[in-house]
């Protein structure tokens, strides 16, 4: 069945024989240096007993497959003696040989992040830790099942690929595992020469502003009166200078690169690697590409990191590459149906699927194909059980909940949410040097923190910390940049202005200055700047306060269109130290110079002298239009009074701001030292309340079900069985059944009554005995005995009383119960034949009831 066509095949192997000999001799000398993270630990022993039987033995189909693979291998070895052995039937964790395609188990897990290839790839890269191949130029001896790999969270690159490929196939991608050769960095998962992806500047899609169409009457720009020649000369000089600096920079960069270049790898081209190939077609993949399962990144099929391909496989077939890979994978084609380039193991069925999905849709061919396919051997189903990942494992994501990746001049640490107490999930440290000793910035990302801190960045040079917060804080803080948390130092705070009642958007502080900007205020204020003087002591309300006196406050306002421009204040400057107030109004339409007024505050009343009276000399100003009516003194005076009041208000506002800063800083300090993590109400594993609530609900549901079941209990069944009556009842039988049932119940009630009665009798009897005994002996009794006796008596009396009560209750309720049962039976579906009801005539019913009561009373009387 499987016959290799005799095709002249070039030497596909990347290294010629003599080279290989050289290599082999030198191989023993090479010591492979592992990065710390990938030290191979001994594999945990397989709990073989737990493995399903398909893991431990081969089915007949699989055996046949193995035989065919062996046949293929022999032919292949014969035809291509120079090529390396293929990975066809490695042993699994139970030491059973399995064909590689059957190790793939296509699975779609119920996590939305695993529905696309990016999610799958990054998940696999995060979830597993790498075990290096040993030696690095040999195929692994063992290929574990994906379930096993996911359980141990460890595996070789082959295990990674098998898991990733299984997930991708489940998500509907046309995915293949590729066995081949790659560069050292790729095989060893060494990213220390790559830039950290988090550091790469995010590409902003610059939507170019649509150029304004040249309007018909646009004015011409004023004539440029500069010499063109001079400008050109200048430009030339500038360009030269720029070129020089650029060259220098390039040189420096080149030098730097050369210094950084790794020593040549003696094993280049021999290092075995396994990755995933995604072919275009399914799920809107426009072009073929590779995914490296170790990093989860995608590469183009011509990427120079991939040096050669031996074979590819999916869950249906296995193809061996017949193309030359001397120069990497540049010119490879991935048309697996092309027999001159790819050699398949199983002929037939998969070709049609892969080469052209359209042929499948043609109904005419289908029958013929089916006829053919009947003879074709199909790949046996996967021996692996379904892949399952628990939500908890999914959340932990990294082996042990954390993972460290080293990049060029950067170190990335990832943690599972809720793993660390302070909510840290990602930490990126960038360094100034290649050896990663001097940190330059430390960037941390947090999740679920109760103080809503999202991101923190520390620049070690300037010692500046910046923090970003998510919305939800009571102080609406959005961003905070600071050196220390001490008040009255340099800092910047941004706020979610739409949440705040005062519309504060930003507050920038310097040692002697505070600037606040506002948004969307009803009083149109958008800017306030306060300048302080040296700190002095102020005694207020008996307390000595260190306070910086205000020297100058500047406020700016947007235009309020309800007022005329010349009356609408644009800027107010309170020069507190000079006792001056400066008011500038908005520009009128078509004006370029605003009107302004300068006030000098009159002196307040002091001990010796009266308050200074207002005089027109205290005001000066400029009026744009000399023809408008000047302000009257009254207006000016009123304005001044208003401004003085405003000045007081402004000072209060500023002091409030300072207070707020202090309170924010102290709360930040507290939050940082003692962080709680918030737990969403939708997180049942962590939210205790929610879980309890859920359990309660479940329990209720269960109980309800139980009750439902009880309700449906068949009352008639026992009697029916006992009487040996058939399922379908005649009216005679039904009557019989009913009376039987009722009688039985009546008997039960009697029994209960008599039981209680007998207990009462017993207790009374005992009490009487005791009393007799007491009467006989009470003269000779000790005090203790007497106490005992009295205690017993009261006890017994109590018990008797209880029993009597129970009896009375029982007697009261027994007829009701009896009637209820009768009612129920009347409606019982199996007895629901009119005759039955009629037969049980009213008097007899009544009689029955009376008798019951009588009997009960009788019992009691006894």
């Amino acid at each position, binding site marked *: 069945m499987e016959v290799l066509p005799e095709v002249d095949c070039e030497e596909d192997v990347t290294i010629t024989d003599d080279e290989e000999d050289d290599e082999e001799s030198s191989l023993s000398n090479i010591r492979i240096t592992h990065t710390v993270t990938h030290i191979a630990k001994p594999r945990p022993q397989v709990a073989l007993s737990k493995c399903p039987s398909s893991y431990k033995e081969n089915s007949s189909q699989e055996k046949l497959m193995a035989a065919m693979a062996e046949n293929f291998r022999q032919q292949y070895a014969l035809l291509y003696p120079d090529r390396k052995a293929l990975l066809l039937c490695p042993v699994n964790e139970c030491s059973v040989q399995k064909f590689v395609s059957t190790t793939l188990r296509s699975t779609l897990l119920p996590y939305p992040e695993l529905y696309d290839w990016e999610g799958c790839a990054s998940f696999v890269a995060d979830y597993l830790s790498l075990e290096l191949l040993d030696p690095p130029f040999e195929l692994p001896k063992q290929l574990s099942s994906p379930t096993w790999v996911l359980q141990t969270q460890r595996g070789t690159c082959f295990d990674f690929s098998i898991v990733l490929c299984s997930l991708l196939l489940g998500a509907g991608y046309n995915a293949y595992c590729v066995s081949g050769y790659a560069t050292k960095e790729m095989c060893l998962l060494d990213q220390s020469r790559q830039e950290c992806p988090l550091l790469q500047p995010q590409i902003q899609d610059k939507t170019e502003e649509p150029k304004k169409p040249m309007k018909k*009457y*646009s*004015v011409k720009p004023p004539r440029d009166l500069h010499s063109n020649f001079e400008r050109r000369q200048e430009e030339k000089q500038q360009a030269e200078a720029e070129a020089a600096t650029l060259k220098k920079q390039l040189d420096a960069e080149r030098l730097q690169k050369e210094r950084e270049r790794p020593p040549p790898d003696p094993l280049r081209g021999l290092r075995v690697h396994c990755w995933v190939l995604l072919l275009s077609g399914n799920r809107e993949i426009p072009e073929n590409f590779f995914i490296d399962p170790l990093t989860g990144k995608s590469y183009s099929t011509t990427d120079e990191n991939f040096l050669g391909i031996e074979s590819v496989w999916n869950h249906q077939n296995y193809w061996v590459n017949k193309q030359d890979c001397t120069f990497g994978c540049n010119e490879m084609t991935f048309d697996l149906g092309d027999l001159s380039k790819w050699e398949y193991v199983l002929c037939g069925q998969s070709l049609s699927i892969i080469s052209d999905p359209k042929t499948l849709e043609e109904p005419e061919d289908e029958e013929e194909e089916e006829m053919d396919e009947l003879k074709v051997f199909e790949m046996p189903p996967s021996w692996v059980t379904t892949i399952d990942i628990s939500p908890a494992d999914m959340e932990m994501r990294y082996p042990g909940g954390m993972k460290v990746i080293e990049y060029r001049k950067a170190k990335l640490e990832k943690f599972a949410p809720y793993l660390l107490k302070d909510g840290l999930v990602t930490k990126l440290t960038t360094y100034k040097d290649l050896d990663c000793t001097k940190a330059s910035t430390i960037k941390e990302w947090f999740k679920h923190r109760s103080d809503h801190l999202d991101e923190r960045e520390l620049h070690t040079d300037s010692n500046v910390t910046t923090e970003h917060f998510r919305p939800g804080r009571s102080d609406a803080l959005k961003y905070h940049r600071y050196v220390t948390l001490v008040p009255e130092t340099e800092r910047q705070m941004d706020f979610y202005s739409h949440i705040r009642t005062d519309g504060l958007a930003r507050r920038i502080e310097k040692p002697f200055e505070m600037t606040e900007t506002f948004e969307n205020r009803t009083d149109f204020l958008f800017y306030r700047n306060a300048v302080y003087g040296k700190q002095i002591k102020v005694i207020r309300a008996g307390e000595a306060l260190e306070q910086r006196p205000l020297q100058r406050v500047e406020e700016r306002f947007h235009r309020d269109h309800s007022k005329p421009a010349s009356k609408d204040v644009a800027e107010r400057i309170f020069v507190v130290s000079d006792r001056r107030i400066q008011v500038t109004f908005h520009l009128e339409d078509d*004006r370029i110079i605003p009107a302004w007024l300068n006030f000098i505050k009159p002196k307040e009343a002091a001990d010796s002298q009266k308050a200074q009276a207002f005089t027109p000399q205290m005001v000066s100003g400029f009026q744009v239009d000399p023809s408008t009516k000047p302000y009257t003194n009254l207006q000016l005076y009123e304005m001044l009074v208003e401004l003085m009041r405003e000045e007081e208000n402004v000072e209060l506002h500023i002091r409030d701001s300072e207070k707020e800063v202090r309170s924010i800083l102290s709360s930040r300090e507290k939050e940082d030292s003692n962080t709680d993590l918030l737990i969403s109400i939708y997180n049942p594993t962590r939210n205790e309340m929610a879980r309890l609530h859920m359990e309660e609900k479940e329990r209720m549901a269960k109980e309800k079900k139980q009750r439902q079941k009880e309700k449906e209990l068949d009352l008639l069944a026992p009697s029916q069985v006992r009487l040996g009556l058939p399922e379908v009842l005649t009216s005679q039988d039904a009557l019989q059944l009913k009376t039987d049932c009722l009688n039985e119940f009546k008997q039960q009630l009697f029994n209960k009554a008599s039981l209680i009665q007998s207990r009462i009798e017993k207790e009374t009897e005992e009490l009487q005995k005791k009393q007799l005994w007491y009467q006989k002996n009470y003269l000779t009794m000790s005090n203790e005995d007497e106490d005992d006796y009295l205690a017993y008596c009261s006890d017994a009396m109590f018990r008797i009383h209880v029993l009597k009560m129970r009896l009375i209750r029982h007697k009261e309720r027994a007829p009701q119960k009896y009637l209820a049962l009768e009612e129920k039976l009347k409606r019982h579906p199996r007895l629901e034949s009119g005759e039955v009801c009629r037969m049980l005539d009213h008097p007899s019913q009544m009689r029955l009831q009376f008798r019951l009561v009588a009997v009960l009373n009788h019992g009691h009387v006894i």
Partner: protein
Amino acid sequence: MNWQQDEPKVIDEEMLKQAIEEQGPQGQAGDISKKEGIQYEDVLQLRLDYRNILKIFHLWHFTSLTKLQLDNNVIERIEGLENLTNLVWLDLSFNNIQVIEGLEALVKLQDLSLFNNRISVIENLDTLQNLHILSFGNNAIAQLENVLYLRKFKHLRTLNLAGNPICEEESYKTFVTAYLPDLVYLDYRLLDEQTRETANTKYKYAVEAMQQNELQEQQAMEAQKISNEELQLHKDAFVEFLNGPQLFDSMFDEDPDGEKLALLPGMEALLESYPCKMEALCVQIFDAGLTQHAQRTAEVESFFTCSHEAVADNRQKAAQIAADFESSRRQKIVEMQQITDVELLEDNISSCQEQASQLSETLMSLELQLVDQLEDIFKDFERNISDMVGGFIEYVQGIFAQCRDLENQHHEQQLEIALATLEKVVKNELEEEIPDDMAMLLVDKDTVTNAVSASHDTHLLKIDNREDELLTRINSWMSGLLKSIHDEEVKRNRKRVSEIRNYVSYVKDELEDMRMSEHH
């Protein structure tokens, strides 16, 4: 003092002065205002209560008054309030007013109180559309229908009718509630849901019918408005009444001879085709007029946006320069005030003056540049718009010429028919009876020819008139537009130049003052 025994008074100067002084600013502000004297125009509130006033007088100075209280007087007529157009609040309660009148000009009025008067009819308030609060309590209103008058006040929320004869009526409250659905307070009380419901159920149909009528009226008004707008558009395009047979109709309207001639045998066919052709030509003019109008509007708009943009741009630049200068100047002044050395100060002052001159130059050159730029585009615009108008005029003239041709043709045919008929009449060959009017004409050739040409002349005159009207109007529109643009620009330029001069001279004066004070 018992005010009731006082003589009835008329508002006079003395009373006003006293009231203003009493009610004006107090304390230091009062002193200042007394010194300065109070301008009646600036007073915002005035209270003239309990003064036994009989006649409102002397109030025309108070143009910015917003609140006026004339309660508790003996006023009999509302008068003399025409100039108080800014009034928002007017209190005329406790007077002897019988008729609502003289309030038409107070369109900003929101709160009107006529409590405790002798009013029997609510009327003459149509212009007061901003009314929020109305008080007619303790009056003599006896007809519930008066309430319907209040439906036109869309903002009315509070109404007081307590103490009127209508309140005795059983259905008073429900009636008012049903017909004034936006009312919130009636007679000192909040209208609750229950009252509303009962009122609505009771008067549902009546109110609905009324609403229906109002809606129809409104729709009719809207339709009228739309057609007016359309007509205005046509007028703006100078082609009104050319989209139909109006021109033709007007030609024949004032044409007594034509009417008679129309009765000539054989004229019918002629008169059938003629209006159609005429109308087609008119419609051509009309369509061209509308499209041309749209083009012209677009052109004008484009010109205005561009020129406004340029002006705004320039203004921003100039304002920036001025602001920079001003801030540096202030700093300089503060610095200079601390200089004690006279010579150094002198140096500083002169350098500042130089800078001021420089600023004036910069701003002026910027302004000149703008003037140049605007002049350029204005010239372009002038050329384009006159080209457009010229083209349109040419086209219209062509069509009017066709109209005249048509008329000439018509005239010839008419003449032919008339002469032929005359001949027949003369020869007595005519079969039909001729009406008497016609018989009068068909006396001899001259009379007939005269009549026909008289009709022809009337027609031509009409056409000429229409053409002339169109041409004069479009030309006057164009020249008016261009003139207004030019005038605006000149005004703007003057304003800017005077602004710059004013500012620079202010700066220089200030410096001069400083120098003077230093020398002393």
